[in-house]
């Protein structure tokens, strides 16, 4: 008004009826002709809606800006993830690339080791070999980890015996043990004889945990305990048969709860506590797990539905405990992270890369289990993993007839029986340069002595030496040589050097020489060549080296033997062995059409001390089985005339029905029964282990092999190691 100019403004009024409304007010003064202000024009426009719309627009624009910002963030994250994946991929590829020339270097070093070297050169070479092996191991670890992480790792499902696995892992660890520690293994009786799982990975995990335990323990003991537990709360229902349709959702939401469940159950191994937690946390659990039963029988088949199924799932818990330096509480959460060690000091002092636990955890979780730890500083630690295993009830061989405590009946043939039932192993500490101490259960001694015998017989047959009078020491030194850091062994042995002949002249060892003679006979007859799981073949080139060491290690033995209380029984044990050995030399049949493969396999078998029969196709194989009873058949899959799968089917049908009708239908005539023929019809035919030799080695053809009745398969090319493992596993 004062300025005489129109003005417009927005004014918000509050009205009672409509709430707050906004009006655009336009006021202009009205002038008379003379220029005087006589009034105003007052206009008001209701712009409430527009104002609202305006405000909404602003809000929307804000939201858009926020969204865009989020998008950019996400894209950046995706980028980073892609880069990371690529980097991982590159790491894996590079590691792979590194592996080839590195194994070339190691192979060359091994070849070098077979040439003539003086002592200094040999020492240098041993360092090369062990360093190279370490690096190779490292690369394999890296590759494993990236494989597991990228989800490429495929799990196997093979039948294996947990007791044997535990025993082997402990044996291997014991053989390379440099400190004074006791190694124990305890497998509860309710753990089944055979379970189905990925034995390689499980062995890897066990080995890793045990070597960690050994690394960080300087005195006392390291042990493994295996026992059955009821299904833990974190188990996904999907893995159980006959699950009552409970959803996976519930289990996932239970996962966070699970952590607390298992970690608290760590400290109390009482099953009741376990159950209690289950109920508390309202985790998904099967109704039959009553809190009242402390230990279930391992088979979660209390409900009727499960009892009829041929396969059940068993949850086995494994504790790897030690009396070592322990782990501080603040380090526990990062323990399983990659590349993490407890502290920088630890890393420096104890070495290692920090990959092992990460790999273990990944593997365990991949298999559907959990890996946890509990520890007290300066007291010790216990690493626990729980895994589900399938047990095939129908294939439970009744070879656990031996009373595990019945020592006197035991002979080496019964070792598989023993292994099946024996759940307790102990490896006493030893001083460098000797493998066994004199105390410890006689069972342990038998196991260990048994071990020597086996490694012996392999070595002797492997190199066609004359049966020298010191077979045991050969085996022993070899065992040590192979698994230990060769350098340190060399030093240890060189310290205690004595001429070889001292052994035969050592006094009051009649019982000992009896033992030795007994062993020699054992080797002579060379019936069962159960070779120990220690990888002899890769170091067989160092045979000359071993011989030298052998001589030096002699004097340790007499001390050992003296201590044995049951040496007398030992010699009788061995003589009874000879008798049974001379009767049964295993008959092995090789079915293979490729001449080269036949040559190579035959030669390897010869070196392992077996003579084998060879046929070239499935028809000949069936005829051979009709004529003779074989203890083991190695069956090539791809063959002309009749392939391995069909031949196996025919052989299995004979085993099931007791007659060769199926074979006759396929056109194979039964040869006239000779005096050598199989058991008379009143006894059911024995199940012959048939091993497939596949060229593809893909999982698919493995399933085909199993479906056709094969027991196992070996992928070509055939190596010493594979043959040895086969023989070990399938020859009684």
């Amino acid at each position: 008004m004062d300025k005489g100019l129109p003005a417009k403004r927005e004014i918000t009024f509050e009205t009672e009826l409509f709430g707050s409304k906004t009006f655009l007010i336009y006021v202009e003064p009205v002038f008379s002709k003379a220029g005087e202000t006589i009034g105003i024009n007052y206009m008001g426009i209701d712009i409430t809606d527009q104002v609202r719309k305006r405000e909404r627009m602003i809000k929307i624009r804000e939201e858009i800006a926020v969204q865009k910002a989020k998008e950019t963030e996400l894209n950046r994250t995706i980028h980073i993830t892609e880069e990371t994946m690529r980097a991982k991929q590159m790491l894996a590829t590079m590691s792979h690339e590194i592996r080839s020339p590195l194994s070339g270097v190691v192979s060359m070093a091994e070849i070098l080791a077979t040439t003539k070297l003086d002592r200094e050169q040999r020492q240098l070479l041993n360092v090369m070999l062990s360093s190279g092996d370490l690096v190779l191991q490292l690369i394999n670890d890296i590759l494993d980890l990236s494989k597991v992480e990228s989800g490429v790792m495929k799990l196997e499902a093979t039948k294996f015996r947990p007791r044997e696995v535990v025993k082997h892992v402990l044996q291997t660890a014991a053989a390379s043990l440099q400190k004074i520690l006791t190694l124990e293994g305890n497998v509860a009786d309710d753990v089944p004889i055979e379970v189905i799982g990925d034995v390689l990975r499980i062995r890897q995990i066990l080995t890793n945990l045990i070597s960690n335990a050994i690394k960080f323990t300087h005195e006392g003991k390291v042990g493994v305990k295996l026992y059955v537990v009821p299904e833990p709360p974190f188990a996904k229902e999907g893995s159980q048969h006959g699950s009552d349709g409970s959803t996976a959702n519930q289990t996932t939401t239970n996962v966070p709860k699970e952590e607390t469940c298992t970690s608290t159950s760590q400290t109390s191994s009482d099953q009741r506590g376990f159950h209690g937690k289950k109920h508390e946390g309202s985790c998904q659990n099967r109704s039959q797990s009553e809190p009242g039963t402390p230990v279930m029988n391992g088979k979660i088949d209390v409900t009727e539905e499960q009892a009829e199924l041929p396969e059940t799932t068993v949850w086995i818990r494994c504790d790897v405990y030690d009396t070592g330096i322990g782990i501080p509480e603040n380090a526990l959460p990062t323990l399983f992270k990659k590349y993490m060690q407890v502290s920088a000091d630890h890393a420096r002092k104890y070495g290692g890369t920090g990959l092992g636990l990460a790999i273990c955890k990944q593997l365990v979780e991949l298999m559907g289990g959990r890996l946890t730890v509990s520890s007290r500083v300066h007291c010790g630690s216990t690493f626990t993993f729980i895994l589900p295993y399938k047990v095939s009830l129908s294939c439970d061989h009744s070879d656990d007839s031996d009373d595990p405590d019945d020592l006197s009946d035991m002979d080496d043939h019964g070792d598989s029986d023993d292994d099946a039932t024996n759940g307790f192993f102990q490896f006493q500490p030893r001083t460098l340069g000797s493998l066994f101490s004199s105390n410890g259960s006689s069972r342990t001694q038998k196991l260990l002595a048994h071990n020597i015998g086996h490694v012996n017989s392999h070595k002797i047959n492997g190199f066609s030496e004359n049966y020298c009078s010191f077979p045991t020491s050969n085996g022993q030194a070899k065992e040590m040589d192979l698994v230990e850091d060769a350098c340190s062994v060399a030093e240890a042995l060189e310290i205690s050097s004595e001429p070889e002949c001292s052994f035969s002249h050592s006094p009051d060892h009649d019982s000992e020489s009896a033992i030795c003679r007994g062993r020699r006979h054992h080797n002579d007859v060379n019936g069962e060549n159960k070779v120990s799981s220690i990888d002899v073949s890769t170091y067989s080139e160092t045979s000359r080296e071993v011989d030298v060491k052998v001589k030096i290690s002699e004097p340790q033995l007499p001390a050992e033997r003296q201590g044995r209380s049951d040496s007398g029984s030992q010699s009788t044990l061995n003589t009874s062995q000879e008798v049974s050995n001379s009767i049964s030399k295993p008959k092995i049949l090789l079915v293979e059409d490729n001449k080269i493969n036949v040559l190579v396999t035959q030669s390897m078998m010869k070196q392992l001390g077996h003579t084998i029969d060879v046929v070239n196709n499935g028809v000949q194989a069936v005829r051979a089985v009709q004529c003779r009873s074989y203890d083991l058949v190695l069956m090539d899959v791809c063959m002309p005339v009749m392939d391995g799968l069909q031949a196996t089917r025919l052989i299995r049908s004979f085993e099931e029905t007791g007659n060769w009708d199926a074979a006759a239908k396929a056109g194979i005539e039964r040869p006239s029964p000779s005096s050598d023929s199989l058991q008379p019809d009143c006894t059911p035919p024995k199940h012959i282990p048939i091993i497939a030799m596949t060229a593809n080695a893909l999982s698919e053809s493995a399933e085909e092999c199993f479906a056709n009745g094969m027991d196992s398969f070996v992928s070509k090319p055939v190596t010493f190691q594979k043959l040895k493992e086969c023989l070990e596993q399938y020859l009684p």
Partner: protein
Amino acid sequence: MLGLAADRLRADMNRLLSFLFHQGILDEQFLQLQQLQDETSPNFVSEVVNIYFHESEKLLRNLRSLLMDREFSDYNKMGIHLNQFMGSSSSIGAKRIRNVCLAFRAASDQNNRAGCLSALEVLEHEYCFLKNKLHELFQ
């Protein structure tokens, strides 16, 4: 003096072997073969390798004649020869040859004749190379 020559020979042999390993032409399986050689069978490796050559040449010839046949359609038959070749190659540790066989088999699975032909050529080339090198080794 004799010792010197033997040493030099061995050095050459080792150098050749390490070359072959490094190039990925041979792999650890070859070492397994070497382990089988001892006093009872002193020429095991060369014997096996010679048999391998003999067999392989036959197989390669079969493969070529099959593929060159204008009315070729029997991939199965080719597969059998190929499997034989692959089996023996892997048994003696001829890694590169085996890998080419794998590619050959893949082409054969897809009934890709052109692919098979080219794989065959690579195979023949690799085989000749290996044969020469191994001959050198056994000289």
